[in-house]
């Protein structure tokens, strides 16, 4: 049987999404299921990412699996000049599954070709981070009861933010989403995604400021303007404080509306929002563990 990898969100069909989301709900009800008993998982973080790594490692632990790996390239053979090819070939001999994050784009697709075991992409540079998308979908499903007819406002860095691009692709598989993009011109949603929506006949609107429009939102998806994505530090300074969500902006928003953020946040959501019941980002992070348990179970055909 062909091994299943998860490299890019578009590798999966709507049926795959729904299966994973069902499993995630099951793991939320009953998180400790020892389906990985006797199995070893490699957690290869060539680039540090504490949040994603801990989420994955928690998911693996709750499934009863063992973990080998490293949390940054400095403590691996990469620092001796070993190629990605050789590292993956070697590790693939030892384990049943590889979870990897790498700063180079396309590294996960390449690793999946080299490895004999399934590979889960936990982020390859600015390219893809599909497990984030699945946990975002799970959070939307949980809070809205459906993934159809969602009116979503994406705010912040829509140009370099890979999470918004992947979520846009995934939600487009469901009934009649409406997308609203709020970003400065320098960080606007790229043309290729707008073209994709046009071709699918999906409605979208572009705004340049956060105003009463957000009162129509079911979901507000905030993103961080990431310094490391900018070639020119002056460009970063110009836009970093442009869009900040504050509690007083939320008074007339819909009761079902929830605010998501892939975290870490810097200043784009004011701390006064945290107490609002519409703030969902910390629960969203918790959902990540269930979603990752579900993804692992799906990939290894454990459930």
């Amino acid at each position, binding site marked *: 049987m062909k091994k299943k990898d998860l490299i*890019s969100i578009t590798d999966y069909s709507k049926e795959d999404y729904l299966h994973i989301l069902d499993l995630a709900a099951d793991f939320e009800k009953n998180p400790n299921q020892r389906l990985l008993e006797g199995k070893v998982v490699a957690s290869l973080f060539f680039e540090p990412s504490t949040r994603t790594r801990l989420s994955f490692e928690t998911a693996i632990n709750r499934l009863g699996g063992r973990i080998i790996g490293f949390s940054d390239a400095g403590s691996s053979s990469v620092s001796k000049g070993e*190629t*990605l*090819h050789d590292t993956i070939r070697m590790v693939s001999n030892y384990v049943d599954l590889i979870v990897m994050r*790498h*700063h*180079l*784009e*396309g*590294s996960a*697709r*390449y690793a999946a070709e080299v490895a004999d075991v399934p590979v889960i992409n936990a982020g*390859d*540079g*600015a*390219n*893809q981070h599909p497990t984030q998308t699945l946990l975002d979908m799970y959070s939307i499903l949980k809070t809205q009861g459906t993934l159809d007819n969602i009116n979503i406002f994406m705010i912040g860095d829509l140009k370099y933010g890979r999470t918004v691009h992947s979520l846009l692709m995934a939600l487009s598989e469901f009934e009649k989403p409406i997308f609203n993009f709020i970003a400065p011109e320098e960080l606007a949603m790229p043309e*290729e995604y707008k073209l994709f929506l046009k071709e699918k006949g999906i409605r979208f609107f572009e705004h340049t400021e956060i105003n009463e429009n957000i009162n129509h939102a079911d979901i507000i998806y905030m993103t961080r303007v990431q310094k490391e994505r900018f070639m020119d530090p002056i460009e970063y300074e110009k836009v970093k404080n442009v869009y900040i969500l504050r509690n007083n902006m939320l008074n007339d928003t819909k009761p079902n509306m929830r605010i998501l953020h892939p975290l870490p946040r810097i200043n784009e959501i004011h701390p006064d929002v945290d107490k609002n019941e519409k703030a969902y980002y910390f629960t969203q992070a918790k959902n990540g563990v269930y979603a990752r348990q579900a993804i692992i179970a799906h990939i290894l055909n454990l459930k």
Partner: protein
Amino acid sequence: MSDSLKKKLKLKVSAINDGTVIDHIPSENLFKVISILGLEKVKSQITFGFNFESEKMGSKAIVKVSDVFFEDDEINKISLIARNAKLNIIRDYEVVEKRVVEVPDKVIGIVKCFNPKCITNNEEITTYFNVISKNPLDLKCKYCEKITHEHQMVIK
């Protein structure tokens, strides 16, 4: 092309008995065409010329390869840099077939990904693109998923 120019061309490039003539190659890409087709390893007789006058192209190059007949997959690789190349298949000094090159659906090797952060530019990996538009050429990298546009194309 005028008759007199045709005659001149015939004089400049000797005829072949059996083989393939590749015409209408942009002069500046002649050596890339030779390299893509691996002609430097071919043992049979090869004649090539460039900076020939061409009404359509201004300047063109021609390659004549004796005793070699190319498969479509092989010859279509040059379409990326010689869009209007034409092939004449020669048997016993006669043109028995004329062919044009077509941009393939996949481009494997040949082109560099324009994205400096792509894994293919950082490790020894054969590039692989899906052609998402043929005119103008847009190549989507299988690895980093970024699109290399025609004006960004660099031949490896």
